[in-house]
């Protein structure tokens, strides 16, 4: 995991076949990165469904959310439609796991992302991180707490 207080590495990845996202797109806003092992697996589903219900709460803290896994953009598209997700899922697909590796959130043995969270502020600086065991849904209390701290300092 990358150190708090350091600049977040840049990325440009597809979410769906027609849409790309970069770190710069979120300048001036807080950004939550939620790395997770795979679309469709039960714990991830719960975690992403939970965050999906919280988008308004995140918005109140001037924050956007991106999920990241090694699944392809087509897989993400199907998964998002099936779960009614209203935030982008990045396809860290080619070269596989490149973004996750940069963020120290790649599990080489399983060939998938760790279950890792980052909160990045509007200037691109990492302000909070958390690594969860793969089978444990970390919830969102840590994210909210980190966002509130950033917003309070303004």
């Amino acid at each position, binding site marked *: 995991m990358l150190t708090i207080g350091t600049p977040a590495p840049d990325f440009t990845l597809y979410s769906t076949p027609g849409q790309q996202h970069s770190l710069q797109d979120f300048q001036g806003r807080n950004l939550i990165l939620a790395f997770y092992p795979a679309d469709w697996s039960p714990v991830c589903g*719960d*975690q992403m*469904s*939970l965050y*999906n*219900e*919280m988008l308004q*709460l995140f918005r109140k803290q001037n924050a956007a959310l991106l999920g990241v896994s090694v699944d392809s953009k087509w897989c993400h598209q199907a998964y998002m439609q099936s*779960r*009614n*997700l*209203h935030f982008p899922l990045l396809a860290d697909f080619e070269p596989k796991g490149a973004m996750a590796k940069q963020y120290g959130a790649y599990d080489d043995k399983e060939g998938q992302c760790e279950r890792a969270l980052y909160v990045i502020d509007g200037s691109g600086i990492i302000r909070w991180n958390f690594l969860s065991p793969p089978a444990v*849904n*970390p*919830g*969102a*209390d840590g994210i*909210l*707490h980190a966002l509130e701290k950033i917003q309070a300092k303004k």
Partner: protein
Amino acid sequence: MAKLTPPPGPQDHARGKEGASVTLVEYGDFQCPHCGRAFPAVESIIEQMGPALRFIFRHFPLSEAHPMAKSCAIAAEAAARQGKFWEMHHAIFQNQDLLSPEALFAFAKQLGLDLEQFRKDIQDPALEEKVDEDFVSGVKSGVNGTPSFFINGHKYNGSYDEESLMASLTF
């Protein structure tokens, strides 16, 4: 970490006395099948523990996954205004396969609620706000899915079957 915030208070729907030795708080979603399975387990525990237990239900509707979840929560709050929160809570969980706006009115009728008042109350934004407040309190308390239980303010991470829950309550 994962401590219940805020602690139980007058805003909560509670069964059992305030001084009970154990307080069990559930964050639940009326349309969640897991919560539906936990319902009989919790009811059986309430019966067995009697006055030793206080049980509180807070709303945690996952609206995108369960389109009727929030309406059910609001219906329960509307029933609460007529003193029938728990009756509505039971009616919903006992008929979880049949949930629809019409079904909620049918439950209200069966429970003998004043239907005109019920119709007015479910449109009162204050009830939706109360449900949202429960949701936010859940997130801040570390709820990561439903049902989530707190025993005397601490998150319970075990399974929600009767035996496991009971063992943790009677420690």
